[in-house]
């Protein structure tokens, strides 16, 4: 969503990630125009692209897989069913129509990969014992236990070479296995894991590693070259595209959260809920390599790493995210689209080519059959848009090709619930929103009437309630000096700030609706009733401070009044204002004077007078030096406009004649200096 030029809106109440644009005084708008704006809500059989267009997307069926929590691999079979390799109980689930059943149990933690092999048998790679099992005739048998291998991450069957290749970890080995189950190391990488594998153009194998995220091209036993060194840690998935292209998904994870060392007794204790911190989502990148091996980055997401990759019948890559369970695609022009938005956390497998198209997700494990594009259920729903305050909504507008129906609903909770209004009657053309006033609003678009329709530039103006700004404090201090704390004692002693006739008036305002404010200042002498304008009538003060030149004012104690008003952003009948006056502010621009200054032995006798008082400090320096020594008055406290002092300087100067400079300050920092000779 773009942010229109004008005032920025960031109310104290608003938590929306959307910017809000202003059209006129008090009127703002939700402007949904980017992929992130439009994909923040719910996409049911709809798609949003990076050009801000919403259209019909993949229509998904839903079959819950029950006990499994994750899907790692998918294999459509010729009979129309689909096998899914799942975790965390190592089951192979078969989905036929809307029914899921257990086709085999491997006894392992997860079935990470599935492929058809010799004689149409299904071969499944598992973890964590490095086992490949064969599923044939409804029976699971161990095909091979790979030595020095814990995890089988990917399988590729090469019918021509009559070999099954297995990418494994944690020794980073690529195994070649013959029909009898005899395994040989085909390539031994320096990386701990080879996590992805694909048979590429020209008979070469491509393997992606975990560790330094390397893409290997393996052309024969022990013969490999690194095609690309990706940033990050992992080349999670590979797929062959049209025209001898290769798609690669790589991920950057960063440092995982620290896991406390597990006590050995845990292994014999009773299992309980696991609440250890989860790592943050990483960053995912989709890269295309052309037939000459030249890379081109097609898609990058900073908010999620990718967990699955498939190539569609249209030749485009489809990547599944590991966060929020979405499927993105990108075209040659780098226009990316969200084509599916599932309720699950991760996409585990994508098959969008061939007769059986599916998206399988994890956490929880769900099988989504791709039924087509659009349909009666194709609905795009925005995320709840937060106006910050109760708002009245104006004319909902959008641009579209084809027939779509838009409607709205409103409420006052961040998450829509039963207190929200019903969806408004559908608008087939831009029109005034019929939903009642509310802080939150959602916009919905239906594509049932025209699967080819495209919607873009959804704009929803609104005006929020105008709340009165409240001035909560007004302070004044000499320019350059800190405003004295209201809660703590002032410092004891020390140098006084240099006098200035300029006072800095500052104030705080509670402006709940964050509309622009204008301030007007006035002052009066303490004890008088008449306020005098401090700001000119045409002077627009929008900052919460003001410098006040007091040199021409009679000395005395003043009060300053600050009035806040939002009349600059609201019509007169809606404008609100509030004023607050300060405490007494001292205006004193005249220094004190010495009524008496004399010496008596090693004592300096002085009497200092000030107009408003009190005297704040008296100190002395000797013989032209700038080291000043403070003294207290005779009565011990500087608290009056006239103070008498008897300064015993015998401990500060040696015997003999000295020139003594005596300096006196008043409370406003005005100072006077006189000299006297000490004999």
């Amino acid at each position: 969503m773009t942010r229109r030029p004008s005032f920025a809106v960031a109310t104290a109440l608003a938590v929306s990630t959307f910017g809000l644009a202003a059209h006129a005084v008090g009127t703002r708008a939700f402007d949904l125009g980017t992929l992130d704006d439009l994909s923040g809500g719910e996409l049911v059989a709809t798609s949003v692209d990076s050009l801000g267009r919403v259209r019909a997307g993949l229509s998904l069926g839903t079959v819950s897989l029950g006990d499994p929590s994750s899907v790692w691999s998918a294999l459509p079979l010729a009979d129309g069913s689909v096998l899914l390799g799942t975790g965390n109980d190592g089951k192979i689930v078969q989905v036929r129509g809307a029914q899921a059943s257990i086709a085999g149990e491997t006894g392992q933690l997860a079935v990470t990969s599935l492929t058809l092999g010799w004689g149409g048998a299904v071969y499944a790679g598992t973890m964590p014992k490095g086992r490949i099992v064969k599923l044939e005739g409804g029976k699971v048998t161990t095909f091979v236990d790979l030595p020095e291998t814990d995890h089988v991450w990917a399988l590729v069957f090469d019918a021509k070479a009559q070999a099954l290749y297995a990418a494994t970890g944690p020794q980073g080995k690529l195994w070649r296995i013959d029909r009898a189950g005899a395994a040989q190391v085909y390539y031994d990488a320096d990386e701990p894991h080879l996590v992805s594998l694909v048979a590429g153009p020209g008979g070469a194998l491509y393997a992606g590693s975990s560790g330094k995220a390397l893409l290997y091209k393996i052309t024969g036993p022990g013969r490999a070259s690194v095609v690309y060194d990706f940033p990050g840690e992992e080349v999670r998935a590979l797929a062959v595209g049209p025209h001898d292209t290769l798609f690669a998904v790589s991920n950057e994870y960063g440092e995982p959260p620290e896991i406390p060392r597990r006590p050995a007794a845990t292994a014999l204790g009773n299992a309980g809920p696991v609440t250890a911190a989860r790592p943050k989502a990483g960053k995912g990148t989709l890269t295309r390599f052309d037939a000459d091996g030249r890379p081109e980055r097609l898609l990058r997401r900073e908010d999620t790493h990718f967990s699955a990759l498939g190539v569609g019948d249209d030749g485009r890559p489809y990547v599944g995210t590991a966060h929020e369970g979405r499927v993105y695609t990108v075209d040659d022009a780098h226009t990316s689209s969200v084509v599916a938005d599932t309720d699950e956390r991760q996409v585990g497998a994508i098959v969008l080519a061939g007769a059986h198209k599916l998206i399988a997700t994890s956490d929880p494990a769900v099988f989504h059959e791709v039924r087509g594009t659009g349909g009666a259920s194709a609905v795009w729903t925005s995320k709840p848009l937060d106006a910050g305050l109760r708002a009245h909504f104006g004319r909902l507008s959008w641009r579209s090709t084809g027939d779509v129906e838009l409607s709205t609903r409103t409420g006052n909770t961040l998450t829509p619930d039963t207190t929200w209004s019903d969806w408004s009657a559908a608008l087939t053309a831009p029109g005034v929103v019929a939903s009642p006033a509310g802080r939150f609003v959602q916009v919905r678009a239906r594509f049932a009437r025209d699967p080819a329709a495209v919607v873009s530039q959804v704009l929803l103006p609104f005006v929020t309630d105008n709340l009165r700004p409240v001035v909560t404090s007004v302070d004044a201090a000499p320019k350059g000096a800190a405003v004295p704390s209201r809660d703590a004692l002032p410092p004891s002693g020390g140098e006084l700030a240099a006098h200035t006739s300029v006072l800095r008036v500052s104030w705080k305002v509670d402006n709940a609706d964050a509309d622009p404010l204008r301030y007007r200042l006035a002052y009066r002498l303490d004890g008088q009733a008449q306020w005098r304008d401090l700001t000119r009538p045409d002077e627009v003060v929008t900052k919460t401070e003001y410098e006040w030149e007091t040199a021409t004012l009679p000395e005395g104690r003043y009060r300053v009044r600050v009035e806040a008003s939002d009349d600059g952003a609201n019509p007169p009948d809606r404008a609100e204002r509030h004023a607050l006056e300060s405490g007494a502010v001292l205006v004193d621009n005249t220094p004190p004077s010495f009524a008496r200054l004399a010496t008596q032995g090693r004592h300096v006798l002085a009497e200092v007078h000030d107009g408003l008082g009190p005297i704040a400090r008296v100190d002395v320096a000797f013989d032209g030096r700038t080291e000043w020594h403070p003294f207290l008055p005779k009565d011990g406290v500087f608290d009056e406009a006239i103070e008498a002092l008897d300064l015993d300087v015998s401990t500060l100067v040696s015997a003999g004649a000295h020139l003594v400079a005596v300096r006196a300050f008043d409370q406003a920092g005005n100072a006077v200096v006189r000299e006297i000779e000490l004999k």
Partner: protein
Amino acid sequence: MRSSSIVVAAALAGLGLTLPLAAPTAHASGPGGPIMPVSEVKPGMKGYGLTVFRGTEPERFDVEVIDVLTRFRPNQDLILVKTSHPRLEVARVVAGMSGSPVYLDGKMVGAYAYGWQFPSEAVAGVTPIQSMLDELARPLPPMLGPTPLPSVRASAAAREPDTQRYAGDVGAYDLRSHARQLAQASPALAGGRAVPASTPLLLGGCSDGTLRLARDLFEPLGLDPVQGGGAGTGAIDASARYVDGGAIGVQMVSGDMSAMGTGTVTRVQGNRLVAFGHPMMNGGVSALPTAVARVVWVMATQSRSFKMAESVRPLGALVNDRPTAIVVDDRAKAPTFPVEVHIEGVDGAPHPDWSFRVAHDKFMGPSFVSMAIGNAFDTTTSERRDVTWHARTAITVRGHGTVTVDDVGVSVGGTPDVQDWAHARAVRAVGALLNNPWEDVVVEKVDARISVRFARDMVHLRGAEVLADVVDAGQPARVRLHLVPWAGREETLDVEVPLPPELAGREVEIELAPGWAEAPELPTPDRLDDLLANLPRGAYEPDTLVASIRLPEQGVAFRGHVASRLPPGAFDALRPAHDSRAPEPFVSYLRTSLPLHRLLDGKDRVRLRVRPVLH
């Protein structure tokens, strides 16, 4: 100083006054004669009691009611009586006479159950019979064949709270903690000072160390272990039956060692009887073997007198252990399992093989396994020499095969204390299995083979150094160990620790520790099979050094599986956010076990850098 606290149930009888009685037997079904409610008991009433002072025949002792203490326990009165019998003039209050029936006006009024320590007169407390009969009438889990195994086979409907089960993670099973839990859970024993009823637990074939361990474990439960001998040589009188006033034993271990809780039958009704007049361990529904007992002698002491007895005929089982009585069914057969101990390496030992049968009980089982192994070891190897030993214990569980656990140790200057066996892995394994929360198990056999060397066969890890602090990727780290034997000069041993190539460019820390102190990563068990799989893997081979290197990858453990060194994407996929029944994450370590052929003591760590190598 004499204590004012109440002790063991007691009964009094006239020494030498043998009065054969036509007491009903367990097979002589019937009401067992009239009973007198407490409300009819008055001070000064006189009557008699029945108990066995010697042999198997009950004798009379005289009784005079002092008064009735109302609400002595919750909903239970206590009748205070004076007793007289020539033997009780000496013994005063006798542990083991708990349950002796008391009659007034020819009606059974209750059972002797309580006494006071250091008594100066023969005064005891009588538990009213009605309170005991209430327990007899309490429903029990259905009998299945000759073996009730209430804790094993009880139907869900009839099953009662399992008061004997260890409360806590099975992996943290500890025999002493289990004993403390049971002691705290026993209302009759809570607080200790107020009413510490106890039952003499007569131990036969035990060393002093075994007796100390028994006291540690059982005294807090109200049992009073005493060296009694008489392991029970078999049926002296195969026709022996339970009779009112007859001696009864609860046989918790038999064979080369015996342990029998001794008391007196109060009342036989059909195939069941009540005895003791107080709980044995207040364990509720139980399954402990019982036997008709023969009293050898009433030992009189100042602090507490007790009956010395032995079993003469195993018969029935204790099926319910309640605050006012134990309930025994003579048709029931309590499960036991054999414990065999074979000790090698003690030349000329006359008795290297030991054989026991231990009650199949959640607490008694591991308790007597520890005592049996410890007793056999202590007795066979008793020497004032250093001992190095390695016990390999095979535990056979019905339907689940056999698991083997290792215990090792070095004892300086003599045989290790029997009490150390309470913490042995073998004992903890038996305890974990019997107390597992998933399913009831039947332990079929425990077979411990202990090899002994009279030597301090251990070296201390004085320190370690890397021979090169920078190592090329793919090459192993070479570490020199400085080992100090018990006697002799410091030795050095160079070992190689493999380093995975992915550590290239990293600083690496290698932790060095004895194999017996290091465990591989194991999954938290979710079922019995998981626990069984984990038990043998609780440590590396004891005579090895384990080098552990922390790896950048993480792993998970879940439902019997351990997946270590996972790529971050797989690690994320394995851990669902929607379900807390998720794999447990752990830091991956590469552990290498290096044979030392000796036990090691001490730990150390060394650091080095792995240099990337350009090929």
